[in-house]
């Protein structure tokens, strides 16, 4: 059974919460991680469909991180990243083994690999060259924490560890109520709103229809469906995490109200946006800044970094044209907006809206961004007939 695949998962989580709440009264905070590890391991071994795959990934990633960071001490972290990303890259390339009549994916692919890979890279990037390796128990919990195992949010190791260190203390009535609130919100989003959209709106017109109105309907329906489905998962994970004493980061805050692409990624799949900014955009921008030929073109540097960042995001979903194109579109939106912001700063005025009042500008911006995001996600969905 995969996390959140049916209500039985919630029953298991209820048991986990009950065990942690019970343990809080007999154990000190320092033991929280052990109890959490036992629970995570129990889920992986007895409930998760491919336990060996996941356990092997955790073990190998720990060993390889130790090798590349503490033994070989690669100056260029790109090599370390490539080594740690190898399992995910092999899966994303969808390689067919001609000598063996299965695809490689049939052997090494498993649910949750992408999110685990992002967390592994995050840990490796954050780790200082001579810093001691993470404590294995915490590292295991970091990658195998049941509520976020499958669909994130993408945690940072340091944040996770801090939260885990005060795990028992965080199991309070207030946190429990806040968690329950998030869980209910997630259930309503995922199992009611997304379900209704899926049944009654998303399939109103055939995907293959090239009529403009049908396509517009499919585009908006998918945007709403994706949000409520994905945000539903994230709120449930957040809620259960909170009830278990862990502070899972918020992943969605009203993306429909975003006024520009940057704002959108601060509201939609926030943890992915942050991850990309911190571990890809910033290092890439720094790298481009050091390039002599690009020194005199700061806007171009930023825009190249932006487009490549979103291209990576597209590729992360899979090496398929719809994902890649959707990533490029988000990159272009961001680059155009970035250019616009810099031009406004240079000229000392809004080059597009002039002296229009701020409420009108905000409303127009929301409408534009809403439609741009809906369009890019429509391409992402693969439901566009062209």
């Amino acid at each position, binding site marked *: 059974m995969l996390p959140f695949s049916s209500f039985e998962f919630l029953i298991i989580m209820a048991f986990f919460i009950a065990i942690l709440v019970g343990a809080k009264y007999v154990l000190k905070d320092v033991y929280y991680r052990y109890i959490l590890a036992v629970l995570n391991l*129990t889920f992986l071994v007895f409930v998760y469909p491919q336990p060996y795959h996941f356990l092997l990934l955790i073990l190998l990633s720990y060993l390889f991180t130790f090798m590349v960071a503490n033994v070989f001490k690669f100056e260029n972290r790109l090599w370390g990243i490539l080594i740690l990303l190898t399992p995910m890259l092999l899966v994303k390339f969808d390689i067919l083994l001609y000598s063996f*009549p299965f695809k490689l994916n049939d052997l090494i692919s498993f649910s949750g690999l992408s999110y685990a890979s992002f967390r592994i890279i995050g840990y490796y990037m954050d780790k200082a060259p001579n810093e001691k390796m993470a404590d294995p128990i915490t590292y295991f919990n970091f990658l195998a924490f049941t509520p976020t195992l499958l669909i994130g949010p993408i945690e940072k190791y340091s944040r996770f560890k801090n939260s885990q260190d005060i795990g028992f203390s965080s199991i309070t009535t207030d946190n429990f109520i806040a968690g*329950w609130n998030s869980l209910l919100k997630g259930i309503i989003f995922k199992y009611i709103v997304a379900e209704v959209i899926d049944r009654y709106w998303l399939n109103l017109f055939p995907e293959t229809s090239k009529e403009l109105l049908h396509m517009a309907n499919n585009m908006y329906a998918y945007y709403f469906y994706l949000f409520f489905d994905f945000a539903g998962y994230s709120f449930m994970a957040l809620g259960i995490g909170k009830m278990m004493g862990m502070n899972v980061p918020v992943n969605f805050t009203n993306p429909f109200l975003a006024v520009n692409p940057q704002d959108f990624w601060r509201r939609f799949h926030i943890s992915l946006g942050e991850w990309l900014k911190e571990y890809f955009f910033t290092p890439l921008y720094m790298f481009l800044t050091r390039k002599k030929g690009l020194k005199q073109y700061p806007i171009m540097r930023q825009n190249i970094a932006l487009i490549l960042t979103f291209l990576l995001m597209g590729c992360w979903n899979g090496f398929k044209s719809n994902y890649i194109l959707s990533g490029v579109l988000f990159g272009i939106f961001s680059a155009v907006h970035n250019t616009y912001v810099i031009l406004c700063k240079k000229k000392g005025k809004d080059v597009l809206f002039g002296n229009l009042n701020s409420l009108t500008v905000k409303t127009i911006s929301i409408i534009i961004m809403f439609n741009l995001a809906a369009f890019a996600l429509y391409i992402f969905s693969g439901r566009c007939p062209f």
Partner: protein
Amino acid sequence: MKRILLIYFLPLICALTLTFLLAFKSTINSSLFTAESPSPIDPSFRNIPNFNDNVLYENEFLSSRADHETIFMLGSSELGVNTEATPYNFITDHFNTKVVGVGHAGNQSFSIFSQLLANEPRLKNAPILIGISPGWFHEVSANGTTSSQFLEFNSSRFLNSILMNDSIDTFKAYEANRISSFYGEIVSPDLSIKLLHFKSRSSKSFLHQFLYAPIIAIDDLLYSLRSDLLKTNSITTTNSFERKSIREESVVINWDSLFTVSKQDQLNRSTNNNWSIDNTYYTNNINGKRSFVSPVQIKYNTEMEDFLELLKLLKEKKVNASFFISPLNPYYFKNASDLSPIVAIVETELKKNNFPYLNLWNSDSTTFEKGILFDIGHLSKYGFYKVDKFIVETYKLTK
């Protein structure tokens, strides 16, 4: 505390009260849970592509008609080739005994096994013809029936029947293990699938049993509640479980003439290639390109495992089963002979279990009979006439 009570627990109590009212008050039940009446099916139907279209097909499955016996022909994509020679047309048109086809692409051994297991009370002496495609045992098909195809042919009613039938425990365990292997791919699994999966997981060890016990208990409770709710609205079958004897009829069929004409017809349709493939199919899909088969070793071949379990079920339940093995076009598949060892195993197993079969497999392009297929792996009219003859002889339809 008051806030918690009002905001969270009051709605919860209301929801639970409503659920219990719905569950136990029969008047509310009947108004809310009345099953939608299925549209009537054409009584002269010959082919059931799947069981999703109309629930009434489930009642027809493996049942004999009032006045005659019906032979059920189960298989995959070959059943979609609807010609005058396809058994569900040819036999039905010429004899009182009918043939009904069940299946389309993907209805492989495990799917068939499960359909038959669900209808276990109807199995004894049931005349069943199964079309085996060697393609089932290569590439990804060797992983066995996919979850989506399985669900198309195995409705919750069928799975409920398996779940509730205590006389098939050994087969039930196999069914549960196989469902468990693709359970993760099923979106919103039905309660019966969940129970089969959880029971399979629970049987792995004492710890599994301990962990899954509360989940199984809750699902069992829900299952019995649902069964009670649906009992009054269930569609009851009027079809007989009793088998009719197949009567020999005085029908004279000139097989030689049918073979000659249909073979020539297929050759006339394949003039733009030497591989006896239909012109249109060749132009649209082949154009001189060849492919190869990728047989999967027996130890990794789930399809073979499923097939052997299917034979075990047919044998134990004394089914009047027969088989035909289709060929693959050796002109198109460069290394078709690589599948011959697997076909040989299939043949040996059929022999060992005394099931009559017709083996049309021939991977040697020098002796392969042109015209038997219309494309790369589906029987032409000529091929189907051979199957028709096999049915007539096996089930003794003529005097």
